[in-house]
């Protein structure tokens, strides 16, 4: 099987050059015999496109600027921009600082937890216990404050509690090797249960007014909440860790194949443990935010948030199988859901329809690429069949 062009640029459908895939293909194919090649061509698997392109020399995928401008993340951002523009034009009173303020205040908990969740899902795991950790910190905060502890100490203890909760998940998943889905369903019940044990069905509301006012305050006349500064710092930190450090790139490798990641020297257990520490800590921050924003500490704060966060992350282009995703895409996903919900609310669409929109968006976002790929594949294989063999 000869490469008709003689050039070695084989590009994956994803747009990532894969020299190794091409090399492996050449080594395994027996020279002279065309049969394995034809079989391969008629039944292209998921990664089959790269193989067929060695035969027909049709470079697939994009490179350079096109790759960034037409990628999955970019599409999400375009959709977000279109929705925002549309809402500004069509819906009265949407384009105002008030909108910006309330929209951001509403999405901050989802946004915060979505950051570590992105890393966790990219590494091929999941964490369903995040909302329960937020609830637990909220309950703890209420009880400690009620007990007369200074607020600064309360906040430190709450963050530490989140860290411990995350470490608990991390030990079970990373070091004992238990399946994360099952473990975090367990800790979802456990942490929510502990929240109930801590605070019962009481609610604590008398937090220092200065602090609660700070958490709903805006920067000047822009409508941007002051807390957003901290959130942006976290976003940048997570983006740098994921996209510009060896640790972050290791997570993608981990998501593709744990064995391979081990062999290239990634400490799989340690990486996973650190991720769960991060989800625990950030969930605690989200719990603190939730408590002070609504100035109410209750055991059922933020319940059900885990599914909303995961929906937003997946909508943002992170693959549930791991190995694929980015922080900008997730940001666009979170903001898209937030904007649509807020716009529909302003447009007096009843709140009940909103969850239909969230669900449909999630399904469309995962089904559409597969359908598009299937159509492309069908077209490609028809062309391959009709083309003469080299």
């Amino acid at each position, binding site marked *: 099987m000869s490469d008709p062009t003689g050039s070695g640029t084989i590009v994956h459908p994803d747009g990532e050059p894969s020299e190794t895939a091409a090399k492996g293909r050449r080594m395994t194919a027996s020279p002279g015999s065309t049969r394995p090649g034809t079989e391969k061509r008629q039944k292209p698997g998921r990664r089959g496109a790269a193989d067929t392109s060695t035969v027909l020399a049709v470079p697939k995928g994009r490179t350079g600027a096109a790759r960034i401008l037409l990628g999955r993340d970019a599409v999400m951002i375009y959709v977000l921009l279109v929705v925002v523009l549309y809402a500004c034009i069509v819906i009265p009173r949407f384009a105002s600082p008030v909108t910006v303020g309330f929209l951001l205040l509403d999405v901050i908990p989802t946004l915060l937890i979505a950051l570590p969740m992105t890393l966790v899902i990219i590494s091929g795991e999941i964490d369903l216990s995040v909302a329960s950790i937020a609830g637990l910190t909220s309950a703890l905060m209420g009880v400690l404050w009620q007990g007369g502890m200074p607020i600064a100490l309360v906040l430190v203890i709450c963050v530490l509690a989140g860290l411990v909760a995350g470490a608990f998940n991390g030990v079970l998943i990373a070091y004992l090797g238990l399946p994360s889905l099952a473990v975090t369903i367990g800790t*979802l019940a456990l942490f929510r249960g502990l929240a109930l044990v801590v605070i019962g069905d009481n609610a604590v509301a008398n937090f220092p007014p200065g602090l609660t006012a700070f958490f709903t305050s805006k920067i000047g006349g822009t409508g941007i909440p002051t807390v957003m500064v901290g959130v942006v710092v976290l976003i940048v930190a997570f983006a740098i860790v994921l996209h510009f450090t060896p640790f972050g790139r290791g997570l993608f490798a981990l998501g593709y194949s744990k064995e391979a990641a081990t062999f290239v020297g990634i400490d799989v257990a340690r990486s996973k443990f650190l991720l769960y520490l991060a989800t625990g800590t950030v969930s605690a921050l989200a719990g603190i935010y939730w408590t002070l924003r609504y100035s109410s500490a209750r055991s059922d704060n933020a319940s059900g948030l885990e599914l909303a966060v995961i929906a937003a992350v997946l909508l943002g282009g992170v693959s549930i199988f791991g190995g694929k995703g980015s922080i900008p895409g997730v940001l666009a996903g979170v903001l898209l859901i937030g904007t649509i919900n807020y716009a529909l609310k302003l447009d007096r669409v009843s709140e*009940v329809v909103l969850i239909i929109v969230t669900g449909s968006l999630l399904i469309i976002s995962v089904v559409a690429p597969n359908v598009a790929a299937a159509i492309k594949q069908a077209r490609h294989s028809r062309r391959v069949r009709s083309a003469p063999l080299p």
Partner: protein
Amino acid sequence: MSLDSKSAAPAHPAPGHQRRSALGSVLKLRELPVILALVILVTVTAALNPLFLSEQGIKDLLLNATILMILAVGQTLVIITRNIDLSVGSILGLVAFGTGSVFVAAPNLPIIAVFGIGILFGAVLGAVNGLLITVAKVPALVITLGTLYIFRGINNAWAGGTQYFAGDRPEAFGNLSVDTILGFPVITLIAVVVVAIVAVYMLGTRPGRDLYAIGSDPEAARLFGIPVTRRVLMAFVVNGALAGLAGVLYASRFNSVGATTGSGLELDVVAAAVVGGVAIFGGSGTVVGAAIGALLLTTITSALTALRVDKFWQQAIVGILILAAVVIDRIAGVRAARKLRIAEARNV
């Protein structure tokens, strides 16, 4: 070589050896930990509070477990194929509200027809899940998370603020969860029959065995000639139908059905299956185990009340149980792997 020794071994079994292996197979049952936990829980509670095992006490225990049991059985089918269905709570809610509406719209419809409508409705919703997952080849976790929202949204839009109360339904329908046969509530008997049918189906029929094969290794199952797509679709349809049945029973058991009926139930259902020894990544576990897991989870609530333990502890204990089940499953898996390694080493 090794083939000979293997085929010869069962031909001349030492009698003592056989007995030990029978005992061994009981000890190796995946359901054993959950059965033990249930027995211990019930014994301890009954010893401390004799009222716990009174006739009414047992009836309440069974009634509480019924709906979760049926849902757990359906969920088990899906989990065994290495999928998951998070939308069952929403399906149950839609069907329960649908049942209420049917009775209001057509009060003279025979009850059995209402059951038929409910099960069919659930099966259709399950088929939506199954088709999206098998045809579009998208992970079940994502799709059913989406349909969890969509079905719930449809339920909200349909119900709005409306609620149907027990008074809107014929008395005979409500009596299903009051009347008993031989001390067992009628709806519990329905659940037991469902568990038995599905258990036999999973143990003794080809499609049932296929589900295990698919869950162990989908690729191998496909190469082996198992119609994977059709079987997985079937698992989702059956799960939907069972959630539909659970929805109808919910309407019979509880006073009101409305927009939020059954929300948040999905994780309880998965928890029941996991506690009952169903491996979350498919390929092993039984519906009987899942049903006992459901019984255990609901019994804990009653037991804590009977023992006057603070009710707030209940959810934390459920969480610990789930973690214990996962750890036990892991230990069993490690031991089985070690045994296999030793056996292979001997054969070489």
